[in-house]
């Protein structure tokens, strides 16, 4: 089981690898689109990478309401916590 802190750190690493975003910019409050300039095409790549990392199926729906890094951490946390594989 991963804590939200671990997920946050991992997400920081992924964002830096995929999009060259400075880890210091990645805070829980940072807005993915407005602050980190992650557009809809990037989101697809991000979800693909998260699928690999978590080994879980991710439906784009589960990320529909994600706006900030904090939202993303919570969504991933929920994913790895309870749902074995999304239906």
């Amino acid at each position: 089981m991963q804590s939200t802190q671990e997920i946050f750190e991992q997400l920081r690493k992924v964002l830096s690898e995929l999009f060259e975003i400075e880890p210091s910019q990645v805070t829980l409050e940072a807005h993915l689109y407005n602050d980190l300039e992650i557009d809809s095409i990037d989101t697809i790549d991000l979800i693909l990478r998260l699928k690999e990392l978590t080994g879980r199926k991710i439906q784009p729906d589960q990320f529909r309401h994600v706006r900030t890094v904090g939202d993303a951490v919570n969504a991933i946390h929920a994913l790895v916590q309870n749902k074995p594989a999304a239906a």
Partner: protein
Amino acid sequence: MNEPAPARFAPSGAANRLWRIAGTGLSFVFFGLGALLLGFTIWPLLRLFTLDRRRGIARVQRAVSVSMRLFLWFMETVGVVSTEVHGREKLRERGQFVIANHPTLIDVVILVGLMPEVDCIVKQALWHNVFLRWPVSWAGYISNATGEGLIAACVAALRAGRSLMLFPEGTRTKPGAGLEFQRGAAQIALAAQVPLRPVTITCDPITLFKGNAWYRVPARRAHFVITVGEPILVAEFLAKNEAPPLAARHLTKALTSWFDVSVSQQLREMRRETRPKG
């Protein structure tokens, strides 16, 4: 660059400004009525009498191109703007991916008029505009609202050998600020593996920029210089084998600085020519 010819009918002196305000208003009316008139006659008829959908769209695109040239001729004849195009013949080639900076409202009029057939990416709002919904529908333009499907649609257009045109800024340039490019153009060029044909548009004195009311005409007639550049190749960005999001970021950065340099150089040259005469 050549000295623009003086406007044929425009009065000189103090009356000139009033003339250009009236001329600009008249141009807007002419544009709107023209779009409505053609939108209910020639354009739909071209589509109706062409069985093949794509060929129908191509015919409308050619007709729209002619209409845009006519409209620009009107504005130039009235004396509202003057234009000067360098490398016009390069835009006659088909199957190109054309990108341009976007200082004014009439950039698209100029560009579409210079290209025989082109798929334009236009904002979704135009389908709700009384005047513009007809040209954008009949000409088969691509809406920017389709999200992820948008890149695929653009790549498909290029693969089918059609030309594509978009403004990477996504909206008109904020005067005084640097250029800010969205990543869409880079994403399309990388996915389709095609070069980008850059067109540099400068307007001095600036007119019809974002947030500028149409009746606030500049002190003298606005002059446009349009320069068609040599293709920007994407091979080196593909060769690095970076993940698509990174490659798109790097290409976008390169495109932005290319245009930053090109626009400021062109603007400097224009001003150098006009300044000594006051």
